[in-house]
């Protein structure tokens, strides 16, 4: 597999920006992306937790799914487009308010996870959804959605532009200086915003556990918008390395590692993503397995582990206190905010209680580990105070 790299890798509209900023480029999801910039993963990680980090996530799969023939009745059109996507996922899309985003899972017939994704109801266009899927799965996801839609709805990929994430406690002040309207967005809401005559699609969401935004920009203005954000001294560019350590601290699963086609939402501790209405109707792929696991418990479950000493990486065996192999680490590394090693992994239900003493096998030696609650670092999402 030697000579596959450079010419077959795709680049994002921000490639030159990464090079100029000293980005150390690596292949990821078929794209050449920066794993870190000059200051390094630790500094970038902490900067995001304290200020605002800017990420190029253009490798991901933003798209729009729009009803082919609309009635003009907003509620009826939304119900119709929801009925196109819902048979593939376990989330309640029909119940979304305009502009509301839902984290959900694309499931196979066995109740395994084909992808985790965001599905949002357009705030402006009845009968339209904004859908963002993962980079590594996007071609398969888009084919799967388009096939299910048939001639009822049209899927339009939007992954030829730039998708940026601005994350951290100062993200709101930075972005609202350019786009004042974003202060109106609650967590998991999105909308269109005008910037110098161009439309940006801005979501208040992210993958770090911090307040922040994900911004879809046309390729033509990607570099200008990126540079404008970076001109604010509160903003630094952040690579994939810190993106991974931030999401791990936030206890968020990474598809292809903590989620795959054999892992169910219940096993992955994502039961919240199986919406109540869908549960009651049992009308999603793999419902029999997933509902039975919800009722009786799954054979294995994702847990968070604090690991003593060297980090346990993906693939490390998890042992019980007596040394018997009971599971495997699916993501693991060093948590810069905590100054110690953390991991996500799967173990049988007998070992999932918080405080359970386990071990992980690292280079042939058993190291102490303990089951702890996730997130490892508390989420600091923006919550609107409601007056109801």
């Amino acid at each position, binding site marked *: 597999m030697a000579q596959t790299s450079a010419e077959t890798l795709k680049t994002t509209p921000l490639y030159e920006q990464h090079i100029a900023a000293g980005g150390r480029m690596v292949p990821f999801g078929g794209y050449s992306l920066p794993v870190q910039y000059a200051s390094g*993963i630790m500094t970038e990680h902490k900067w995001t937790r304290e200020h605002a980090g800017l990420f190029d996530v253009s490798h991901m799969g933003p798209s729009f799914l729009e009803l082919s023939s609309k009635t003009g009745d907003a509620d009826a059109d939304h119900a119709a487009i929801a009925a196109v996507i819902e048979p593939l996922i376990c989330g309640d899309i029909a119940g979304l308010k305009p502009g509301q985003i839902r984290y959900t899972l694309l499931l196979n017939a066995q109740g395994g996870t084909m992808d985790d994704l965001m599905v949002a109801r357009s705030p402006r266009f009845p009968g339209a959804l904004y859908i963002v899927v993962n980079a590594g799965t996007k071609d398969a996801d888009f084919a799967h959605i388009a096939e299910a839609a048939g001639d009822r709805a049209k899927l339009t990929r939007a992954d030829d532009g730039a998708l940026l994430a601005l994350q951290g406690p100062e993200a709101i002040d930075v972005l609202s200086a350019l786009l004042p309207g974003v202060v109106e967005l609650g967590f998991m809401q999105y909308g269109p915003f005008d910037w110098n005559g161009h439309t940006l699609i801005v979501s208040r969401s992210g993958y770090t556990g911090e307040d922040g935004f994900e911004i879809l920009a046309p390729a033509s203005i990607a570099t200008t918008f990126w540079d404008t954000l970076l001109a604010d001294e509160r903003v630094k560019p952040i690579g994939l390395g810190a993106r*991974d350590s931030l999401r791990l601290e936030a206890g968020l699963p990474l598809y292809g590692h903590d989620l795959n086609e054999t892992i169910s939402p219940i096993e992955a501790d994502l039961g919240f993503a199986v919406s109540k209405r869908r549960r009651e109707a049992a009308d999603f792929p793999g419902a029999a397995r997933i509902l039975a696991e919800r009722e009786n418990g799954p054979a294995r479950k994702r847990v968070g582990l604090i690991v003593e000493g060297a980090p346990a990486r993906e693939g490390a065996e998890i042992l019980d206190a007596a040394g018997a192999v009971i599971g495997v680490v699916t993501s693991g590394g*060093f948590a810069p905010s905590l100054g110690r*090693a953390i991991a996500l992994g799967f173990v049988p239900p007998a070992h999932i209680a918080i405080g359970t003493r386990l071990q992980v096998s690292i280079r042939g030696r058993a190291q102490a580990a303990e089951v702890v609650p996730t997130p490892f670092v508390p989420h600091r999402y923006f919550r609107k105070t409601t007056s109801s």
Partner: protein
Amino acid sequence: MTTKFTPDHEYIRVEGATGIVGITQFAQEALGDIVFVELPSVGKVFKKGDEAAVVESVKAASEIYAPVSGTVTEVNDTLTGEPGLVNQDPAAAGWMFKIAIADASELDGLLDDAGYAELTK
């Protein structure tokens, strides 16, 4: 006092019959922030090329190989609490272990300053 280098980016600084082993400036930059160092036990006997230590960055673990055969006589325990010394001062405070060199002729097979500079150009 001579310092020799391996193609895997370890250095060995030779002081009499003892070699002081660590990783190069080039290696620490490539690895990024080092968060954990696993050192060998004193008395451990290595053959040239054996896995002798492990450095963990935020992203990944990397093995450190014995540049020559010999017996570990001392390890830099300071790195247990301050692994970042490997980044800050790899050639001095960030040294990893000392080895009693079993066969000084093995040093001849290693790179000198010029050879290592050429490798990392």
